[in-house]
């Protein structure tokens, strides 16, 4: 039983991103920080244990979980049926405001307008899953390794449109780039979930309880304010 193990061990091992701001990136001391990190700390605190953060990438976060090297994956995971066959998901813990962004000159207002255009996304991220669902047949989707690849591809003109989080777009704008990403339309508001191994009902229940209480006591809202610059929507 994972929950018992965690309590016995006194630490909660959490896989967190370090190359996916604002959910996870690093400070000048290379320590991870971001929404997912705060969430991990929050859960550990509620469990009364210490946190052990394990920085992961999109390629290895699930193997970390499956080989029991971590207890939870808090890595802005999106949910789909195939993924659910492999791991369990908690209740959603974070909203994810996905938008399609492009410079002013590009005329795009809805998914159909992407037809014939090249859109950059970060491989495996929620926006990748969602965009793949809504895009029409002749939309070309380029999937980069991490946010940085997506952003660099946009800034260097390799793609004219990107699908990414609104916060990421804001970060790009803050750098005052020659190409200014403007929000064209929102992709379905798809929340993030915490991933954990299958058949751990005790842990799952505990995590869900923590999320529920964090929602009600406002701690989740303050995390969201801090990292996403907005509160959590009511339907989360």
């Amino acid at each position, binding site marked *: 039983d994972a929950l018992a193990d965690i309590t016995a061990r006194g630490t909660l091992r959490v896989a967190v991103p370090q190359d996916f701001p604002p959910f996870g990136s690093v400070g000048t001391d290379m320590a991870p920080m971001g929404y997912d990190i705060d969430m991990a700390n929050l859960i550990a605190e509620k469990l009364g244990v210490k946190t052990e953060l394990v920085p992961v990438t*999109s390629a290895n976060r699930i*193997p970390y979980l*499956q080989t*029991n090297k971590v207890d939870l994956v808090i890595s802005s995971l999106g949910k789909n049926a*195939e*993924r659910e066959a*492999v791991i369990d998901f908690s209740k959603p813990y974070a909203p994810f405001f996905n938008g399609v962004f492009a410079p002013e000159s590009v005329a795009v207002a809805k998914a159909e307008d992407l037809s014939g255009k090249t859109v950059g996304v970060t491989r495996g991220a929620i926006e990748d899953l969602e965009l793949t669902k809504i895009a029409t047949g002749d939309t070309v989707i380029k999937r980069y*390794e991490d946010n940085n690849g997506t952003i660099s591809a946009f800034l*260097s003109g390799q793609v004219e449109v990107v699908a990414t989080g609104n916060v990421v777009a804001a970060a790009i704008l803050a750098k005052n780039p020659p190409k200014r990403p403007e929000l064209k339309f929102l992709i379905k508001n798809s929340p993030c979930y915490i991933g954990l191994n299958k058949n751990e009902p005790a842990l799952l229940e505990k995590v869900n309880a923590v999320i529920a209480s964090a929602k009600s006591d406002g701690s989740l809202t303050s995390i969201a304010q801090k990292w996403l610059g907005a509160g959590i929507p009511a339907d989360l």
Partner: protein
Amino acid sequence: MKYMFDYAWLAQYWPVLLKGILVTIQLITVGAAAGIALGIACAWVRSLGPKWLRPAVTAYVELIRNTPFLIQLFFIFFGLPSLGLQMSEFQAANLAMIINLGAYSCEIIRAGIQATPRGQFEAGASLAMTPFETFRHVILVPSLQRIWPALCSQVIIVMLGSSVVSQIAAEDLTFAANFIQSRTFRAFEAYFVSTAIYLVLAILLRQVLIAAGSFIFPRRSGR
């Protein structure tokens, strides 16, 4: 803990894998052909070519051999557009492989040229061939033949190294594995399968290159 291997995704995702294999094959085919050609040109410059060109080629070779392929790839894909050189990720991946193999094969081929007996140059000269004609018709083929096995190994190293081109969204075999695992979370299965395919590709590629060698060099001469 028990992990249940499940390859059911193969049914749905095999076209992705297949495309990945094809892209990898395309990359290495173009990369090997053009990379070796570039290597030959550079080896010529470094061993026989105009003196004023040599420092430039030396700098190129040293730069490439002493920095990681991934970094070279990033500079080509994200950096060149700022100089107005826009290219697709496939072209960028290919260019990076050509430049990379060019530098390595330059050194390998140069060793082959240097092992050429002096008499071959002199025989060419005494038949009124210019130094370049001598290189082209007399020196080149035996030099390549001498170092062909080393060159084959380098091509395979470059093919395996090409797995990082997925980072710029080039849809090669590794991209396929990553893509599949990002959808299905079946990382082990995806990586097992792609590793096995790489192994098969490496073995096949060596066979093809050896066969190409025995086609280009009709005989193994005693020298």
